[in-house]
């Protein structure tokens, strides 16, 4: 039998641990990654000529970051590692990639998609202005480039990343205008889930306390109203309504925003995987079994691109999915390893899944804010389409299904293919049509996963 063709997409925590399991089984997988260096977003590595130590870069997660980087450095000679490579399509059992302007098709026996997540965004009037960034962007600017995204930064959204990034900015010496959390204090129902990982819970509470001690205005249960500013100079203030009803304006030249994470699912979609609606996070996710098998034959999904369990969960899921692939292909010693490990790995993931559900209750996606977004707010940043236009297309034109609303309004048709407007767009359409959000459907992924240069060269 010819050597099995195994491809891992992504070199974050899930991808690295998947590749490691394959190498341990004596195989030489191809690892495709868009990044210049491994680590993914969470453990993104700074450029070679930067000097900050791990502890400064990754804080409490320094040991894990270092371990993952070290693991990958060790694996590298035994991998066909292709950084700065975009996986842009999947068809006929082959992954289509482009690197340095050259396109190539890579047939696979097993494809492990570890595509990670992005910030999940909710539009806000004025969020298309210069100076508005995702929370992840704010963190990347700091971690990978030692920069703050502005002279005075307001943080708005909800979820663990909100407090983490704000704290990192505080520690790095940036000036913070405010931290605005749309979630009220966590309901009791969230606690059992959160207690599944007590250390994480305590760390989060510590971050909040530190921000308070530093005198940063910190609002919970607030409603963001708008980013003020102008077309030429960008943002100059964030205006919010406190839980008590009072309006407050925070002067700033940058706003970092995010509402937890959105799975990056385009490749799973192009691989024709089934999706199912996840009630806890109100988003469509690829359907996988306990080991990460997707409905499409030979396709495995691991990490935040399938289930948003964070970096630890991604490491476990990456290993489990790779072992499952080896088991399914009947390849020893990997299949034996699967038999030995899969129960323990599944148990770890189940615990993290409980925590994920607790988080979703503590930091809920504020769908009502999308539903009530003012008509003049831009929903689709790429195409500059407003909530009012989307609502008109949903109701007057009969675009009560999300892809139909997209066809009429262009929301989700731009360069980002709905990554940043799709979830809110679904809520807006659902509310306008008085339908449950799962009924309006999800934006179908369309190739290319990211823009493809027209001057691409084809190599065999």
């Amino acid at each position, binding site marked *: 039998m010819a050597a099995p063709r195994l491809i891992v997409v992504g070199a974050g925590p899930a991808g690295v641990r998947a590749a490691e399991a394959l190498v341990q089984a004596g195989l030489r997988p191809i690892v495709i990654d868009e990044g210049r260096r491994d680590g993914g977003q969470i453990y993104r590595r700074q450029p070679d000529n930067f000097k900050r130590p791990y502890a400064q870069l990754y804080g409490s997660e320094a040991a894990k970051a270092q371990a993952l980087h070290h693991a990958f450095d060790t694996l590298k000679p035994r991998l066909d590692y292709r950084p700065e490579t975009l996986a842009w399509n999947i068809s006929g059992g082959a992954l289509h990639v482009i690197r340095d302007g050259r396109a190539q098709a890579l047939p696979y026996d097993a494809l492990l998609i570890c595509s990670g997540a992005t910030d999940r965004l909710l539009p806000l009037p004025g969020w298309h202005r210069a100076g508005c960034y995702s929370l992840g962007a704010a963190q990347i600017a700091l971690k990978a480039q030692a920069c703050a995204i502005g002279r005075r930064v307001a943080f708005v959204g909800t979820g663990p990343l909100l407090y983490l990034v704000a704290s990192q900015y505080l520690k790095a010496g940036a000036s913070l205008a405010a931290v605005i959390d749309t979630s009220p204090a966590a309901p009791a129902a969230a606690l059992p889930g959160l207690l599944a990982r007590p250390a994480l819970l305590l760390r989060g509470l510590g971050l909040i306390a530190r921000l308070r001690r530093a005198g940063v205005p910190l609002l919970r249960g607030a409603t963001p109203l708008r980013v003020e500013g102008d077309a030429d100079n960008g943002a100059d203030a964030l205006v919010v309504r406190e839980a008590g009803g009072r309006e407050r304006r925070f002067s700033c030249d*940058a706003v970092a925003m995010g509402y937890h994470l959105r799975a990056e699912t385009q490749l799973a979609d192009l691989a024709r995987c089934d999706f199912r609606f996840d009630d806890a996070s109100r988003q469509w996710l690829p359907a996988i079994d306990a080991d990460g098998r997707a409905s499409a034959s030979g396709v495995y999904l691991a990490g935040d691109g399938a289930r948003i369990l964070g970096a630890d969960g991604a490491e476990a899921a990456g290993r489990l999915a790779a072992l499952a692939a080896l088991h399914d292909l009947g390849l020893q010693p990997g299949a034996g390893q699967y038999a030995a490990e899969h129960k323990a790995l599944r148990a770890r993931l189940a615990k993290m899944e409980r925590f994920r559900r607790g988080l979703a209750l503590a930091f809920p996606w504020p769908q009502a804010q999308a539903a009530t977004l003012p008509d003049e707010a831009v929903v689709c940043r790429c195409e500059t389409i407003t909530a009012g236009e989307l609502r008109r297309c949903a109701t007057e034109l009969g675009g009560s299904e999300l892809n139909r609303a997209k066809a009429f309004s262009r929301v989700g048709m731009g360069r980002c293919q709905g990554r940043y407007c799709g979830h809110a767009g679904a809520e807006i359409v659902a509310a306008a049509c008085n339908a449950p959000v799962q009924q309006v459907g999800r934006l179908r992924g369309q190739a290319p996963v990211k823009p493809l240069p027209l001057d691409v060269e084809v190599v065999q």
Partner: protein
Amino acid sequence: MPSATAIPGGRFVRLGETARRAVHLTVDGRPVTALEGDTLLVAVLANGGHLRHSEFGDGVRSGFCLMGACQDCWVRGAGGERWRACSTPVAEGMAVLTQLPEATWPRRD
């Protein structure tokens, strides 16, 4: 606490790692200085307020996600290059254009 370094007119503020070699580029013809290891996005935004103009008349943009997902930071080079600023390392001599091309673009040689 590290000292913050902000260039007048610049959007991004450097909070450290400033002892790197200088790199020279132009933005809309204006010479600016960045640091080796900067992404093109940081190189431009440490020296100015925006990366590009929206095609639909709603003003300037300065990127959004910094992780290659939003595609809002694509800039043009004076030689016709396309760079996604957040994932492109700055290089000596880059000539970045933040303006949209003129409507006469099909007639360019």
